[in-house]
């Protein structure tokens, strides 16, 4: 017993010294860090995610390499007009942490646990307003030009004509090709521009035969291709709030296209998200990537392929240039924010684009430089940073191109069951490819399951 006690005490002292270390290391970043970390965490209770300082706002956000640099840029930008301003970022591991925090606060009936602002996934926002209307504050009356922020993007954060959110990143999709691999199969980037999916299939087969690489890849578990390919055609997986699968000719065509692509070794379906990013993209298995532009930082990890990639609009069923969007998030003011005017003004000035009116915005420029975040603000896209050529993409000014794509993305019917629909379709595709289902039967089962889930 004595020895155990001794070792426990030893470990305890170690812990105490580490806490002390921690608080000194904090000083540089957090203003409250002068207090000891333990007494701090034990003493300040629910106020921990709120600040008493009238010029400080707190925000929940995730991803230190993407969204958080964008928020830091916005803080710096707003300090130009309000030098005392501080933005305290509380890091979350992923978007679902923020959703869970809002859910739990709402279910417990106590919003005092929320920060002033939350970063929130676009596809989820509408259902959180429907089910927890008291959790949010309207952004109406904010001093910014809503028209310049991209209509499709705002459609996610606007409920019954009321604005709630300020857009951070555009989910605008890119289709990137490895020009060197295309060349090995006897094609150029022009050959894959403005083509149909059938033509794409043919080229893809040649590329696979010549190089052993897939011309398209996707996470097979949460398959985003359906949504993007349908949006290119201006069609949704939903119609009047109900699943629109088997009756939807476009969806059936898209489904059959994907079956063919997978069977022809043109499409690589990864097992899950990390298989997609690590094995497929970073493991250099592919000659083409089609996803929201936030996938670019992942591609850039493979530095030896720098200069070999180029971006064009995606193929479509008809051959016209295809534009889609996938993912992306916005900033929302929670019910717990007592400094609503400050929050609105901060967000309107920064992500709302007021600082970008002269074509130069610290927020958008530094978000792009430090995090690779591409906004939807048209005015910000005028800046030199957006217009520059990118070496990794063979000097192509991809950011300006992507902002241009953004203007062409069609607004399609959204649903609270967006992700469930995606999962259902992904399952149907795997059922055809692995479990011997006929496409019609697989789609029908997917529709039945989704309707069940929606309680229809």
């Amino acid at each position: 017993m004595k020895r155990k006690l001794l070792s426990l005490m030893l470990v305890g002292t170690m812990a105490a010294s580490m806490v002390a270390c921690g608080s000194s290391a904090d000083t540089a970043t957090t203003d409250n860090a002068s207090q000891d970390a333990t007494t701090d965490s034990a003493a300040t209770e629910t106020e921990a995610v709120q600040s008493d300082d009238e010029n400080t706002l707190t925000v929940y956000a995730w991803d230190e390499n993407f969204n958080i640099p964008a928020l830091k840029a916005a803080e710096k930008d707003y300090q130009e007009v309000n030098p005392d301003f501080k933005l305290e970022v509380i890091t979350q591991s992923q978007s679902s942490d923020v959703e869970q925090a809002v859910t739990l606060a709402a279910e417990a009936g106590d919003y005092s646990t929320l920060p002033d602002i939350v970063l929130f996934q676009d596809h989820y926002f509408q259902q959180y307003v429907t089910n927890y209307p008291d959790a949010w504050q309207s952004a109406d009356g904010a001093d910014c030009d809503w028209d310049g922020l991209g209509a499709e993007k705002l459609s996610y954060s606007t409920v019954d004509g009321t604005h709630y959110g300020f857009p951070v990143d555009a989910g605008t999709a890119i289709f990137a090709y490895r020009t060197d691999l295309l060349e090995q199969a006897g094609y150029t980037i022009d050959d894959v521009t403005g083509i149909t999916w059938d033509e794409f299939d043919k080229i893809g087969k040649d590329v696979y035969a010549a190089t052993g690489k897939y011309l398209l890849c996707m996470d097979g578990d949460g398959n985003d291709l359906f949504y993007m390919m349908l949006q290119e055609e201006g069609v949704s997986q939903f119609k009047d709030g109900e699943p629109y699968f088997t009756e939807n000719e476009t969806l059936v065509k898209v489904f059959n296209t994907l079956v063919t692509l997978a069977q022809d070794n043109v499409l690589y379906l990864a097992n899950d998200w990390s298989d997609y990013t690590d094995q497929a993209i970073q493991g250099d298995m592919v000659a083409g990537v089609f996803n929201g532009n936030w996938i670019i930082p992942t591609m850039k990890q493979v530095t030896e392929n720098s200069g070999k990639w180029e971006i064009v609009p995606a193929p479509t069923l008809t051959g016209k240039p295809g534009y889609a969007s996938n993912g992306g998030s916005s900033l929302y003011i929670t019910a717990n924010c007592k400094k609503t005017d400050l929050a609105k003004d901060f967000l309107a000035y920064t992500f709302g684009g007021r600082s970008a009116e002269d074509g130069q915005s610290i927020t958008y420029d530094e978000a792009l430089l430090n995090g690779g975040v591409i906004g939807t603000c048209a005015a910000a896209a005028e800046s030199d940073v957006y217009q520059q050529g990118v070496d990794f993409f063979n000097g192509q000014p991809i950011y300006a191109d992507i902002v241009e794509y953004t203007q062409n993305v069609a607004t399609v019917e959204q649903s609270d069951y967006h992700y469930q629909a995606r999962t259902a379709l992904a399952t149907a595709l795997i059922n055809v490819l692995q479990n011997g289902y006929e496409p019609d039967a697989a789609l029908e089962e997917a529709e039945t399951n989704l309707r069940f889930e929606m309680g229809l």
Partner: protein
Amino acid sequence: MTKKKNRSMIQRRLIPTYIFLIICSFISVFPLYWMIAAATNSSLNVARGSIAFGNQLMVNFANLKNAVQGTLWSSMGNSFLYSIVQTVVTLFVCSIAGYGFELYHDKGKDRLFGILLLAMMVPAVATMVPLYGLVSKAKLLNTVWAFILPGISTPFMIMMFRQNSRNFPPDIMEAARIDGLSEWKIFFKMYVPVQKSIYAAAAVITFMNAWNAYMWPKVVMSDNRAQTMPMFIANISSGYTVDYGMTMLGVLFCSLPTMIVFFILQKQFAEGITGSVK
């Protein structure tokens, strides 16, 4: 001479055991080796499954120190604090309960134990919302109490002490009572010392569970200053681009304390007090 011969014969007969244990150890340790190797590599090499050592250790360490607004050491400190408090309190509360259930057992207590056992059988997802409401109403969020309260008294730990008290002879207690020892004295002076191996095992398990707890701490310790090591790891290991080299170094930091605690205590629970209950 014969003794020596005897000993070498025993060792020779143990050769298959050694081989078996070496294989098991290798399989168990290989991922740890991989983790250490990965901590010295660049993210891309880790993603591609490289298992050779690289030269990125210091780079990874520098990145790790700056990650999540530089909260590596405070997360470590928090985890130590919460886990140690949790372990000490849990060991006390559950051991007296297990002792009470077994050595004073009667129909009523056996039935109560059966009821308590039910508490662990409902998936945590179902109880998370009401439990969060409870802790939130008690204004305990972001405090050490929010972390430890739901985990102090677990049917599992009570059961562990209850089951292992079965070998504690009631006659000894009777004798002690005749000697005039109070019930608490019997517990502290007689039960605790002979159950050292059970305490050590329980300490290892409780410490490990507390240290690795993620789902519950994540929702009640939302402030970065209160975050634990597994939350720190979660914060650096998700996102559009993950720095795997740095993450694996962080994971190494996160795994070491449990391993050290195990190594310190393993002698206690595995070579404790054979035959001292007499």
